[in-house]
C-alpha cells in the first residue's frame, strides 16, 4: 500500500507543478501599454523611442501647445515591464523635436527648435529624465526636419526658410558643424507652404529622413527642386551626386533603408497609394524616378501612410520589418527576407481603438517594440508601447 500511496503523492505533485504562477519574466516579455492621462485636452504623440540600458524605454514625443503654432516637446520613461515611470514636458521655448534618439556619452540626444528664431538646438537628457539640457547648434540652421546619428556624429536635415533650401549638415557630438551643403527646393512664393504646414502639424506630415550609405554618400529624403526626392551627396560638391525624383508633393519615398552601396529597402507613395519595395537597386550617382521602382502595393494601408523600416534579425533570420498604418486603424508589421526581399509574414497590432505607428525598434531579447499613438475611448490621443517577444514572431523564420 505504501507504494501506491507514493505513486498517488507523486502524481499529485506532478499535476500541481503544472499550474500557473506569477512570473515576472513574462511581464517584460510581451505587453501592451497605453500611457493615459486624465486631462481631457492633453494630446501627446510619440516621435521616436529607444530601449535604455536598464531594459526600460525612453520615448521622445510631441505635445500640442495651448497656443497653436509649433509642437512642444514631451519625454517619457517606462520601465522594462512597460509601466510609466516619469515624464517631462519641456518648456515651450523649445519646440519641434526630431530624432533618431542617439546615445552619446551616456546621454540621449535629439534636435529641436527655438519657435521664435527657428534656430536648431541640440537637446540631451539622461535615461531617467533627471535633466534636459538644450543648446543651440553652431551655425545658422533653422527648421530641423530629420536627424540621424552616424557614429559619434549627427546628420541633420534642416530647412532654410530665407533662401528656400534643404540643408544637410554633419555635426559632431557637441553640435559643431563639420560639413554642410544646401540644396534648393525651388523658387516661388508658395513652394515652402507644405514644409511650414508640416512644422505646424496642420497639414500633411512628410517623411523627411537622413542617413548615410555605410561608408559612402550621405542622403536626405526631402524637398529638392520642387519635388519630394531622395538626394545623395558627398557634401563636398555643389549639387547632388544623385537623385531619386518624386512627383512634386504627390509622389516620392516614404521610407529609406540602405542595405549596401546600391541596394536599398524603400517604401514609396504615389497619389495616396503606397508601395513597399524591400529589395531594389538605386544609383546614388545618377538620376532616377521613384515611380519606376514598382513594389508591392498594399491597399490595406491608409493613404500616404507613415512607414518605418527596421533592419534586424529575428529568430536568427535577417529580416526587414515594415511598420505602417492600416485603413482599419491597426498597426501592420510586414516581414521580408532581407536577402531576397521575399515576403515572410505579417502581424497586426491594436484593435477596438485606433492605433498609429511612430517607431519600431529591436529589443535586447531579440524581439520588437512598437511605439505609437492610440485613441483611448476613441478620442484621447495617448502614447502606446507594444512589446513583442521572438516567440510572438514565430512565423518569422
Amino acid at each position, binding site marked *: *500500500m505504501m507504494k*501506491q*500511496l507514493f*505513486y*498517488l503523492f507523486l*502524481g*499529485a505533485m*506532478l*499535476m*500541481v507543478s*503544472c*499550474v*500557473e*504562477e*506569477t*512570473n515576472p519574466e*513574462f511581464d517584460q*516579455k*510581451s*505587453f*501592451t*501599454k*497605453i*500611457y*493615459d*492621462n*486624465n*486631462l*481631457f*485636452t492633453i494630446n501627446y504623440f510619440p516621435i521616436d523611442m529607444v530601449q535604455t540600458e536598464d531594459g526600460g524605454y525612453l520615448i521622445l514625443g510631441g505635445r500640442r501647445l495651448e497656443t497653436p503654432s509649433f509642437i512642444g516637446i514631451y519625454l*517619457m520613461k*517606462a520601465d522594462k515591464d*512597460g*509601466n*510609466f515611470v516619469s*515624464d517631462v514636458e519641456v518648456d515651450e521655448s523649445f519646440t519641434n523635436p526630431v530624432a533618431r534618439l542617439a546615445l552619446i556619452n551616456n546621454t540621449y540626444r535629439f534636435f529641436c527648435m527655438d519657435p521664435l528664431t527657428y534656430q536648431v538646438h541640440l537637446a540631451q537628457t539622461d535615461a531617467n529624465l533627471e535633466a534636459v539640457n538644450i543648446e543651440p547648434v553652431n551655425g545658422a540652421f533653422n527648421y530641423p526636419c530629420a536627424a540621424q546619428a552616424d557614429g559619434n556624429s549627427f546628420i541633420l536635415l534642416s530647412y532654410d526658410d530665407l533662401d528656400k533650401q534643404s540643408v544637410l549638415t554633419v555635426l559632431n557630438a557637441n553640435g559643431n558643424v563639420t560639413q554642410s551643403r544646401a540644396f534648393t527646393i525651388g523658387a516661388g512664393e508658395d513652394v515652402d507652404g507644405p514644409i511650414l504646414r508640416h512644422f505646424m502639424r496642420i497639414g500633411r506630415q512628410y517623411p523627411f529622413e537622413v542617413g548615410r550609405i555605410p561608408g559612402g554618400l550621405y542622403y536626405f529624403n526631402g524637398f529638392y527642386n520642387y519635388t519630394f526626392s531622395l538626394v545623395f551627396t558627398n557634401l563636398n560638391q555643389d549639387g547632388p551626386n544623385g537623385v531619386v525624383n518624386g512627383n512634386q508633393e504627390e509622389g516620392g519615398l516614404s521610407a529609406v533603408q540602405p542595405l549596401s552601396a546600391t541596394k536599398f529597402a524603400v517604401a514609396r507613395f504615389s497619389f495616396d497609394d503606397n508601395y513597399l519595395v524591400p529589395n531594389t537597386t538605386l544609383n546614388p550617382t545618377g538620376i532616377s524616378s521613384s515611380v519606376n521602382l514598382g513594389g508591392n502595393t498594399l491597399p490595406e494601408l491608409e493613404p500616404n501612410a507613415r512607414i518605418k523600416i527596421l533592419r534586424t534579425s529575428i529568430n536568427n533570420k535577417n529580416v526587414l520589418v515594415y511598420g505602417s498604418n492600416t485603413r482599419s486603424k*491597426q498597426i501592420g508589421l510586414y516581414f521580408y527576407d532581407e536577402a531576397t526581399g521575399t515576403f515572410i509574414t505579417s502581424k*497586426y*497590432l*491594436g*484593435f*477596438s*481603438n485606433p*492605433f498609429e505607428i511612430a517607431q519600431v525598434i529591436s529589443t535586447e531579447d531579440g524581439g520588437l517594440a512598437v511605439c505609437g499613438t*492610440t485613441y*483611448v*475611448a476613441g*478620442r*484621447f490621443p495617448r502614447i502606446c508601447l507594444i512589446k513583442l517577444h521572438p516567440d510572438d514572431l514565430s512565423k518569422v523564420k
Partner: protein
Amino acid sequence: MKKFYLLPCLLLLAGLTFGQATKKRKGTFSNPAQNQKETFLDKQWWLGFKAGMNLSQVLVEKRYSALSPGNYDASLTDKGYDDFSSPGTQATLEVTFYYKGFSFSLQPGFRHSVFTYSNNYEWTDPENANNRLELNYQNEQKVDYAEVPLIFKYDVIGNKLRPYVQVGIYYGFLINANKAVEISGTDYASGGVNEFRNDPVIIGAKDLFAKNHWGLLGGLGANYNLGNVRLNLDIQYRKGMSLINSTENRFGSDRLSGIGEAMDDIKLNNLVFSFGCLFPMRYLASGFKTLDQR
C-alpha cells in the same frame, strides 16, 4: 489527455487498495465466519450523480492593466470584483467508498463558473467643466472546467439522515473561456448629457486563462436514505490555490488590450451547492437491502 487520466486512475487504485485491505483482530475470541460477514457489511461502494449551482469569488494576487497612467494613481482604475454574485452551474459523477463512517470519494465533474468585475475611468478639464467623459467597463468572464476532486468524508451521526463533513483537494482542467466587455458612460462634451451603452465585445478567451489549476475544499452535507437510494445535499467551499489566469498571454488579445484591459493574477474561490442521488454498488442482504437497512 495523459494528465487528465493520471490522477483518477491513481485515486481509484488507492481506493481499491484501501477497500480490499483486511485487518486481523487480535486477543479476542470470535466466530471467524461472523467477523468476516460484519467486515463485509461495513463496506459499501456508492455511485451517483450530483448537479447544482456555484458562486465565485476572486482573490487578486497582483494587479495588471494595459493602461499605465501618468498623472493619476493607478489604483483609481483598479478592477472591482463582484464576489459571489454571478451563479454558475456544475454536474458531478460521484464514486464513493464507505467504510465504518469514513468515505473516500472521487467526484469528477464539469463546472461552469462566472465572475464579474468593473472599472471606471474619467477624463476632465479643470478649465471647462463640459469637457468631461465618464466610462464604465463591465467585464464578465465565463470559464468551464473539468474537475477531479478527491474527498474524504466523515458521517457525523444518524442512520436514515446522515450528515457529514468533508475535506479534499481538486484539480481543474480548462475546457473553455469567454469574456464579455460592455462599455457604458456619460459624455458631457457633446453639447448635453449623453448617456450611452455600447454593445458588448464578446470574445473567446481560452488563451487568457491557465490550462490547469488546483485547490482545497471543505464542506458539509447530508445523505438521506430513501429505499435503496441515497439523496444527497452537498455544500462545498473551494479555495483556489493556483492562478486561473495565463501569466504569459495576459496581453494576448488585441481586442482587450486595445481598450486597456488586461487580466490580473487571480485565484478563484467557489461556493458550490449540489443535489443528487447515490446508488449502492453492493446489495448486502436478501431482498436487495443496502448497508443501512440490514
